[in-house]
């Protein structure tokens, strides 16, 4: 898509501390130049996605729903790379482990599925955790989204190379697997061609939600259960997103920082639904214009997927590293539905992938019984939204759960303060 008139690049596009700005107003920047430096261990670098001038640095709406410090860049139209970046493909085989990790960190690669966990941190688990499996998540995290699907079909070699690079960071032979939902045979075929010679398994998974969630994926592929309070590396696994694998390849072999990503533009109310490759910092309104505009009936614009995305409150929000999709919908139920009492139909219990009792969690949250709700496994909820989806009483189950989580953490903060 064409270069927008302005790019707004938030300094917080990842889990953890926001990056520290390293440019100032009116600075000239080149494409790929660092504008925000990782601040602390869990944080990530942020780069300019084109060359131009820094117009301002101030808080700006973020697709996550809040405001974040944002660097505004007015492009100069030359789109010039900073020196040393975007090189011809180099072979990664000669590089040391440290070198690879540094390159990934420098390029600001984060998990591109949704949470945005810094990839270099994920690839450096504590030394006492032995990693024996790396899984690439080709099961699209949510319905509607096809960004990863397109990457798998169009650049399978980069996906496979990214996985290999990550595997080279760990000693011994690892089980490498790419899990793809069975309804994407073209992606399976495309990957198989490159993966099989490299001893990478390509597995077809049942098409169901939430197959793309980390814990479900690990279970489906290795049969291991990541239990309460455990992280994947406690079970010897690392799960990475397809987009992340490509970003790792770009960072290590082509010296390209993460400044662009594939975004699925979808929903009934946008003129042209498609996957586009958008620069980080492109505002949603620019994307709408590029995709032919949205209809008058649009009443919600969602960043992410329909199950776990966020309804944005301003069209000025930019595409960030974790923006997997943008949906334009006419949510007819909006405002009409009213929450009613749970009729104990049991559907939420049936669908919860974490084996929780969402109806009870919501009821207890509503009563603000914060001690009790933690005993019921509050922390285990992955906020997949399945329970709210099925509830015939229109109960906002996952929202209540999220509400309780917010109260619990604010109370903890207050206690420690």
């Amino acid at each position: 898509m064409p270069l927008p008139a302005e790019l707004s690049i938030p300094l917080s596009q990842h889990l953890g501390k926001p990056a520290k700005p390293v440019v100032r107003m009116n600075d000239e920047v080149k494409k790929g130049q660092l504008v925000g430096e990782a601040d602390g261990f869990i944080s990530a670098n942020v780069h300019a996605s084109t060359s131009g001038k820094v117009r301002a640095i101030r808080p700006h709406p973020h697709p996550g729903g809040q405001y974040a410090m944002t660097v505004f860049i007015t492009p100069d139209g030359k789109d010039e790379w900073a020196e040393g970046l975007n090189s011809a493909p180099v072979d990664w085989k000669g590089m040391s482990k440290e070198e690879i990790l540094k390159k990934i960190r420098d390029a600001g690669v984060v998990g591109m599925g949704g949470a945005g966990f810094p990839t270099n941190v994920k690839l450096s688990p504590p030394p006492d955790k032995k990693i024996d499996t790396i899984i690439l998540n080709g099961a699209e995290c949510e319905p509607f989204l096809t960004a990863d699907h397109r990457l798998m079909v169009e650049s399978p070699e980069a996906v496979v190379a990214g996985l290999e690079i990550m595997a080279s960071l760990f000693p011994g032979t690892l089980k490498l697997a790419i899990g793809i939902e069975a309804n994407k045979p073209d992606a399976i075929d495309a990957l198989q061609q490159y993966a099989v010679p490299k001893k990478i398994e390509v597995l077809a998974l049942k098409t169901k939600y939430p197959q793309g969630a980390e814990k479900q994926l690990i279970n489906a592929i290795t049969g291991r259960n990541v239990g309460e309070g455990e992280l994947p590396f406690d079970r010897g696994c690392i799960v990475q997103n397809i987009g992340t694998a490509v970003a790792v390849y770009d960072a290590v072999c082509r010296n390209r920082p993460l400044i662009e990503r594939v975004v699925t533009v979808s929903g009934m109310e946008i003129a042209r639904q498609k996957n586009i490759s958008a620069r980080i910092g492109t505002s949603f309104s620019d994307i709408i214009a590029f995709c032919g505009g949205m209809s008058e009936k649009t009443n919600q614009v969602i960043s992410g997927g329909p199950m776990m995305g966020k309804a944005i409150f301003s069209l000025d929000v930019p595409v960030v590293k974790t923006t997997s999709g943008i949906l334009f919908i006419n949510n007819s139920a909006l405002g009409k539905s009213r929450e009613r009492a749970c009729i104990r139909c049991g559907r939420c219990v049936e669908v919860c992938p974490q084996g929780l009792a969402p109806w009870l969690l919501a009821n207890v949250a509503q009563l603000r019984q914060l001690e009790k709700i933690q005993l019921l496994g509050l922390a285990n909820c992955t906020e997949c939204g399945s329970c709210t989806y099925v509830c015939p009483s229109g109960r906002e189950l996952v929202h209540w759960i999220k509400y309780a989580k917010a109260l619990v953490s604010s109370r903890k903060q207050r206690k420690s303060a």
Partner: protein
Amino acid sequence: MISDAFIPAVSSLGAVALALGLIIHYVSKRFHVEEDPTVKLVNSILPGVNCGACGFPSCNQFAEVLVETRNNAMTCPVGGPDLAVKLGETLGMAMAEPKAQTAVVLCQGKNDVARRSAQYLGIQDCWAATQAFAGPKQCRYSCIGLGSCIAWCDFGAMRLENGLIVIDKNLCTGCAACIPVCPTGVLVMQDKKAARYFIACNSHDRGAATKKACDAGCTACQKCVKVCEDNAIVIEDFLARIIQEKCTACGKCIEVCPTKVNCIRLERDLNAVKQAS
């Protein structure tokens, strides 16, 4: 015929009731705990709302600790100076007077004053709203106006008015229960005074952004700082604040504030006036 079934039924039930009654009587006598009469007395003077403002979970505990430690610095904000005097009389010592305080809202962003961002249609609760986005008003420092705090006020002092929380200062006892439950932190405690000026705005946005979002927002224009002869106004992080200890309530600042809805507010406190005179 009837008595055949009736008499055994009634007599057996009666026997059971009698036995249980005797057991209860025995237990209550046997395990009776002698309550300190002073505690009882003190407890009876306390407001008895168990609001927790004193730092104890209940009025009774406050009474127990007070009687045991005779710590005259212990105060009950709800009861105020009157109660302190009464407690002092009961215990035969001089009690510290609690500072009369009241909760204030640092926001005047009613729906006609503060610009809205997107419409919010989720769970009607401030905390729930902040989980979905920055809030239904463009100013993210504002009172969200869904009234999460109301449920925490034991004294019915809070109500919503046109998208803004309003505190009835005659009902507010200064218990501070509402302060920590507000997600945007627009509630603060202030000492009661006969006439009290304060900046009713919480926005740390730059002047231009604040002005765009709200007619009552402090734009950090410095006018009030310059006019104040007592150096009672400071601007920190794009927001003015009146230092209560220094403010002499001359009212000059309020005249120069250029915002459309004056962000400097004067609150008169009739009770405080009465006490002062």
